[in-house]
């Protein structure tokens, strides 16, 4: 059985210029211990999706509809108190900016202890000991000294390790990582990705990884869901998606990134452009959300929104023209 099952998630925001349908009817699931990547460009709704799972969307102006079943319970039906018991305990989250997501006036140790004392009912000494263990686990040298330090005394990579330590302190079943390495330099990113892979094997938590970096996706995800304009447009196991992307948007995304080493193998070519830009989500969209930028679009696409159809084993895409196994990238 799936650990997390999201059914027709709709997160809309009331704005002075109309309702913004940031996430509009997205369904997906995450199995225990699995890593699902959600990819897409700015404004596709990937971060709003993750914030909705944690119920961190301010209501109003936001409104979340649909169902989010986590370990058999619908999170949208829980009271605020019940939800608080889940956040940071069963489901935890790491954010992009380790600079702003840690409290600058509290020591690192205190911030790790806090979640242990609230959720696990540990006393201060036990929590402190566990905090030091967690810092050791995430590879911070001299953890006994570091627990007494403040976030500004740590580098960006160290802060992200602390964030991961806090997120994993209570052994969550699900970890949501929202662009966890985007703000980091590439050598530090390599350290953090390796850490996440190691911890995944040791802790066994399921991970939802939100990113726009296809390299990071290829590195650690098992399954990928591609979002565009608040909808899911394609989903497949990672190798399958990179080998035979079916949706024109996914194909465009993959063609738009240069490959390292391509100048040597003679495979360098002009980058694929996706013309135009993302539609305004405050206006109702008839037909396919990608029709305005798609080279294959016809009147059918502009009138009728394609549903998600099976295009291969565990592979779905929302496109009228992505025939089963037909389009090769």
């Amino acid at each position, binding site marked *: 059985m799936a650990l997390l099952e999201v059914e027709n998630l709709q997160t809309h925001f009331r704005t002075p210029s109309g309702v913004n349908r940031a996430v509009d009817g997205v369904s997906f699931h995450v199995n225990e211990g699995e890593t699902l990547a959600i990819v897409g*460009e*700015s404004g596709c709704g990937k971060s709003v999706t993750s914030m909705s799972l944690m119920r961190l969307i301010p209501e109003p102006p936001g409104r979340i509809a649909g169902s989010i079943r986590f370990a058999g319970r619908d999170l949208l039906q829980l009271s605020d108190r019940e939800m608080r018991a889940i956040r940071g305990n069963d489901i935890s989250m790491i954010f992009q900016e380790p600079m702003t997501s840690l409290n600058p006036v509290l020591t690192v140790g205190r911030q790790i202890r806090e979640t242990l004392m609230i959720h696990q009912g540990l006393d201060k000494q036990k929590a402190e000991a566990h905090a030091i263990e967690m810092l050791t686990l995430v590879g911070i040298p001299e953890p006994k000294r570091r627990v007494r330090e403040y976030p500004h005394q740590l*580098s*960006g*990579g*160290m802060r992200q390790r602390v964030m991961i330590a806090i997120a994993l302190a209570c052994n969550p079943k699900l970890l949501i990582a929202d662009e966890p390495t985007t703000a980091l*330099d*590439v*050598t*530090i*990113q*390599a*350290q953090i*990705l*390796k850490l996440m892979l190691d911890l995944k094997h040791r802790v066994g938590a399921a991970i939802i990884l939100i990113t*726009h*970096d*296809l*390299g*990071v*996706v*290829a*590195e650690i*995800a098992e399954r990928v869901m591609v979002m565009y304009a608040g909808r899911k447009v394609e989903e497949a196991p*990672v*190798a399958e998606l*990179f080998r035979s992307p079916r949706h024109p948007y996914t194909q*465009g*995304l*993959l*063609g*738009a*990134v*240069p*490959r*390292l*080493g*391509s*100048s*040597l193998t003679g495979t*360098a070519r*002009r*980058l*694929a*452009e*996706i*013309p135009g*830009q993302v539609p305004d989500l405050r206006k109702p969209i008839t037909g396919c959300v990608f029709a305005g930028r798609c080279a294959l679009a016809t009147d059918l696409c502009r009138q009728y929104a394609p549903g998600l159809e099976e295009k291969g084993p565990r592979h779905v895409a929302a496109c009228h023209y992505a025939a089963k196994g037909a389009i090769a990238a």
Partner: protein
Amino acid sequence: MSPPLLQVNDLKKHFPVKTGLFNRKSEFVYAVDGVSFEIARGETLSLVGESGCGKSTVGRAILRLFEITSGQVILDGQRIDDAAPSTMRQMRRRVQVVFQDPFSSLNPRMRVRDILAEPIRNFGLAKSAEDLEVRVTSLMDTVRLPREALNRRPHEFSGGQRQRIGIARALAAEPELIVCDEAVSALDVSVKAQIVNLLQDLQSEFGLALLFISHDLAIVEHMTHRVAVMYLGKIVEVAPRREIFAAPRHPYTKALLSAVPLPEPGAQRNPIILKGDVPSPINPPSGCRFHTRCPFVFDRCRTEEPMLRAAGAEQWVACHLEEAAPAMSS
């Protein structure tokens, strides 16, 4: 042989910082500490490295956005680092810049028409009002924006379109060199591809030289002719694209390249994972600045600084492991 378009000799920029009780102690950030390179006409040189390596400071020094601590910046045979304001003004026209953030680098109160007309007026490039109008509209065509957009203001555009306006503004002065300081880093994948293609087209159309400052190695490989790798204010390796990506010599270049995640699931890679973080440029390590993180460190690296040495026809490396090669004359 004609001189290179731009020549940078032993450039240093040290920023003073106040530390200690009551700011009594003055220290320096050694942001750029002895950097030399050349750019030929129509060539793209990329400066790569991680945050704080000094790559943006080099770009700004060339634009003379501040006075440098020491060294020389020579544009087309003429020194510009100490040029008088009147000569500098004409030199400024020849070197333009495109910044990273298209949201903060355009004046929100100006219409696109005025943003583009300003450099043309400043440098007296237009002969008449009609000429000005012709130039402004053709700039819009060049960067593939609709002419109607001239009367709009920056907030009405998306990030990618704003970056096109920023590029058009740089082109308005008819420069020979454009410094692109992380010019595509803030853009989404599909938009990034549009801007990268545009820059390549413009380069071949106008014979522009580009100083492409970036941390994105895949984009750099796609765009560049030569690459200079920086670490803590120094160039550790300079080489043509092929050598850098096929046969990097410096351990830092190797680590940097191997750390890039490839968009190929299951790709066989053995990333060299560097330990620790980049040390502070206030107290850079003695000897080779990379020795605190280098997997091949030996005693000499801790005390003696390696010079850039020729490691191939056009490849220069600053590493004691390259000992056998003759040192670059300095």
